[in-house]
């Protein structure tokens, strides 16, 4: 081995080892982060936070179906008991009143701090009389009778008032002691996972815990429960399912496309060393690509690895060109510049993805650029050093000659006629696109969602069953302390109250419903009158109503005790169901506290949207408070707007990438006309594919757009080879017979290598169409036919030129 050869191979091995180390130590993620912006606005940041760790992201909605009602109810109750004992869940609700006793005790003990009816006016003669008249009327109904024993302590009905306020938060109906769906066919349970929503491992573990517990409950119940089934839905289930489907897709695709391409190459080369050598550029490119993404982004998204399959398609081309045509001694001088230009146009296309604010695209760009450069470099520098002496693969000239003769027939048609046909096709495709322009693009972020439709349906069903607020619209109050955001939440609730009256919204939940701010508690405590004042007022009010004031002595004592009782802090809620309700609506990170206030639609059940304008107007009256910010966040609208931003950005960047490719070609080929000839088949392929997708009623997403960029990037290789062939032939026409035969053989080899390379690309991308992951499917269905058409059009337009 010559020193130079040894040096090249050693350098390559060192780079490989380094990249291997980086890739092995890289962090791989499969959550939503690939779809979330890297430089978010305040609203986007709140959006991302809510999607990742908000209370809704930690909810598991669970239903028990099948069997008879009594079996479902007893299983649901037993499952609830088990899950409540499991520390993985911060709260479990199924209608069973487990903590009702403690809740009542707590509410009763602190009623003068918790009731929003408490004010100085409440304890005047008129206030007491009005409140006690209500209480007396309540006693006439069976419901009021439940509270009768409380009346001597609570004649103004604060307890009933608190319970009624809390029960405004809607809950499903109860049958046999557990929540059931409106048609009573499913017993329901909600479990909140303690771990944050972004911790997919914890979510998966919690979901398994539910299944395990259900299995145990079933066994306890015995054989009668065999027909009963468990249904689990929720963001956690989505996260786990999408991670599984991405992982499955990546593994399956890598194996399948790898195997297919190995088989094709083996069939072609009929040489194991050639096959192994041929895979070196691809393997190096993939490894370097992963390492580059890990270095540049800190974490590699699973989707990026899926895209990586696409790299195989292009990188394998390099070794194919090399092997098939390297027999010629002039490879370095004649073929390599074309290959290099093809590689550079691809890099140019991918480079337009790099500045994208959509991390998924930026990663794809970085991965592809570094991978392609590495693959090309290995092909150019390392492969020639590794070729064994006397290396040869099967002669593919006959295959190329057959393709060439096919093209000869196309060449019989006059060039002008072919260009006219091409123009007609382009015109037709454009017409389709213009006609369909209104429905061309899918503008919802969910179009990129890797969540299987069945899971989405399950989730929608259980949400409707539980009558849960969608938590799609929420007001977020941010501030420097818990007290600040609780006060902010109270002011927000007051500002929104008129909108509840006017039915713009159905209601708003607030953490202050569970625990009022200290300021509010202090004000309520201060409004409680001194003993002698209260006694005098009570005597007069009781006389007016015919109440026996002597029996209300416990009330006087309780109010006096409340005047000096300490204010309530969050830890005082411990052990009650209020703690979960409060905890779900308060977030704390660093120095920032947030109170979450989900809005409920005025007409439950209907999927009517809440009109944001009056809400913003009401909230604007709150502006100006120190260190407090109040935002209305519409998760759906905000995430779709985010996606729309991505789409526009991607369009701009794609056009920039296209422009870059045009400039690069013009500079490299030193001719605008030649550049136009190279680009024409590519543009035609893109238009045809876009029109075909539109005709198939497939709404285009961001990834279709990226796919079109890839068609240009990959297709430019083909077009450049045909372009190179043109001048060659003209040159050969003036040479002697031997040169002419050589040129014919070269043409055949070019056709053969292009056909094989194209087949590999179509296989690589074609397999993506079957991945079941929407982003990969979109990419595959665009690039696979596009790459084929690019080659076909390039060949047809160049034939006989």
């Amino acid at each position, binding site marked *: 081995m010559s020193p130079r050869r040894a040096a090249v191979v050693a350098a390559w091995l060192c780079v490989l080892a380094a990249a291997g180390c980086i890739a092995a130590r890289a962090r791989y993620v499969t959550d939503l982060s690939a779809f979330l912006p890297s430089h978010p606005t305040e609203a986007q940041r709140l959006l991302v936070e809510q999607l990742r760790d908000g209370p809704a992201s930690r909810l598991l909605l669970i239903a028990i179906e099948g069997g008879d009602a009594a079996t479902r109810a007893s299983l649901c109750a037993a499952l609830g008991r088990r899950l409540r004992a499991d520390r993985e869940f911060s709260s479990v609700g199924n209608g069973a009143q487990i903590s009702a006793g403690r809740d009542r005790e707590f509410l009763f003990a602190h009623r003068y701090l918790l009731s929003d009816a408490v004010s100085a006016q409440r304890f005047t003669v008129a206030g007491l009389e009005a409140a006690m008249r209500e209480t007396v*009327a309540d*006693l006439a109904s*069976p419901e009021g*009778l439940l509270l009768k024993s409380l009346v001597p302590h609570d004649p103004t009905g604060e307890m009933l008032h608190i319970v009624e306020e809390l029960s405004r938060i809607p809950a499903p109906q109860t049958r046999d002691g557990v929540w059931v769906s409106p048609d009573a066919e499913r017993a329901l349970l909600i479990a909140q996972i303690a771990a944050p929503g972004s911790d997919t491992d914890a979510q998966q573990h919690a979901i398994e815990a539910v299944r395990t517990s259900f299995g145990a409950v079933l066994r306890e119940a015995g054989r009668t429960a065999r027909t009963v089934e468990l249904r689990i839905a929720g963001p956690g289930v989505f996260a786990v399912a999408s991670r599984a489907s991405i992982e499955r897709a990546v593994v399956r695709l890598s194996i399948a496309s790898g195997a297919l391409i190995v088989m094709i190459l083996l069939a072609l080369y009929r040489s194991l060393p050639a096959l192994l050598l041929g895979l070196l550029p691809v393997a190096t490119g993939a490894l370097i690509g992963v390492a580059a993404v890990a270095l540049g982004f800190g974490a590699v998204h699973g989707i990026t690895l899926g895209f990586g399959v696409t790299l195989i398609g292009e990188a394998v081309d390099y070794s194919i060109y090399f092997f098939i045509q390297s027999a010629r001694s002039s490879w370095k001088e004649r073929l390599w510049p074309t290959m290099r230009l093809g590689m550079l146009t691809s890099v140019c296309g991918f480079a337009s993805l790099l500045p994208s604010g959509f991390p998924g695209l930026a990663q794809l760009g970085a991965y592809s650029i570094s991978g392609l450069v590495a693959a090309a470099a290995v092909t150019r520098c390392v492969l020639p050093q590794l070729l064994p002496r006397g290396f040869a693969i099967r002669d593919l000239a006959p295959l190329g000659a057959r393709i060439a003769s096919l093209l000869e027939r196309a060449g019989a048609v006059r060039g002008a006629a072919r260009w006219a046909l091409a123009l007609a096709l382009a015109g037709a495709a454009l017409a389709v696109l213009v006609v369909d322009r209104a429905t061309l693009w899918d503008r919802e972020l969910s179009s990129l969602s890797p969540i299987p439709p069945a899971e989405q349906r399950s989730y929608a069903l259980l949400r409707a069953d539980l009558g849960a607020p969608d938590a799609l619209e929420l007001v977020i109050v941010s501030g420097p302390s818990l007290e600040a955001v609780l006060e902010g939440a109270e002011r927000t609730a007051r500002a929104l109250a008129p909108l509840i009256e006017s039915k713009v919204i159905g209601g708003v939940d607030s953490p202050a419903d569970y625990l009022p701010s200290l300021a509010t508690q202090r004000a309520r405590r201060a409004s409680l009158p001194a003993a002698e004042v209260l006694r005098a007022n009570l005597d007069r009010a009781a006389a007016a*109503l015919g109440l026996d004031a002597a029996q209300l002595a416990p009330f006087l004592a309780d109010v006096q005790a409340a005047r000096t009782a300490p204010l309530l802090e969050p830890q005082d809620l411990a052990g009650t169901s209020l703690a979960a309700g409060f905890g779900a609506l308060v977030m704390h990170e660093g120095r920032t506290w947030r109170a979450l206030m989900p809005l409920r639609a005025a007409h439950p059940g209907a999927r009517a949207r809440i009109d944001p304008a009056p809400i913003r107007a009401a909230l604007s009256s709150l502006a100006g408070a120190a260190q407090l910010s109040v935002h209305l966040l519409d998760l759906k609208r905000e995430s779709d707007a985010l996606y729309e931003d991505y789409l526009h950005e991607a369009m701009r960047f794609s056009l920039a990438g296209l422009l870059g490719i045009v400039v690069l070609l013009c500079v490299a080929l030193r001719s605008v006309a030649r550049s136009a000839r190279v680009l024409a088949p590519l543009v035609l392929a893109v238009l045809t594919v876009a029109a075909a997708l539109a005709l198939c009623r497939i709404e285009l997403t961001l990834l279709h757009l990226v796919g079109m960029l890839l068609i240009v990037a990959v297709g430019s290789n083909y077009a450049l080879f045909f372009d190179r062939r043109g001048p060659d032939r003209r040159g050969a026409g003036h040479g002697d017979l031997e040169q002419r035969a050589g040129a014919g053989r070269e043409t055949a080899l070019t056709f053969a290598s292009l056909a094989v390379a194209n087949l590999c690309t179509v296989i690589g991308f074609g397999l993506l169409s079957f991945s079941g992951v929407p982003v990969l499917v979109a990419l595959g269905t665009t690039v696979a036919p596009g790459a084929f058409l690019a080659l076909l059009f390039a060949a047809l337009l160049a034939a006989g030129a």
Partner: protein
Amino acid sequence: MHLLAARRHGETSFVEQHFLKLLKRPTESYGELIYDAPDRLVKRTIEPRPETLSVSGDELTVQRGGRRRVLDLEAHPEILPFIESIRATLAGDLGSLERAFDVEFAGDLARWRLTLRPRAPQVAKTVSQVRIEGTRDTLLEVEILETDGDRSLMTLREHPAP
């Protein structure tokens, strides 16, 4: 009992008095009581405060001033004597009555009296007995005695035939 069971539908007006030791005078309310076989009972109070209580199966719905609440009877057995005593009697459903109460029958068809004592200890804690008086297939009076000495008396009067 089977005379009662034969009635499919009934409407009566009622006057109800509550004698509470908390109050020097009894409270008084009136309204109408509507029964549909087999298990639907609606008690509509008109004065002093409009309120509708309807029971169907195990579900109790309370409607008052635009607010509607649904309670599960099984979750609130304390309410049961106030509902089931009247409903099961109207339905002529001795089985249901005997499941919830010790039943004692006195008098004759022209003037009978049922004395019901709650069986469940949880219920017996608040209600000591329910007395129902009637003639043939018609209820006349329902009196509920609570353990703390409070009681309510409901007097029923058949609507004149329309």
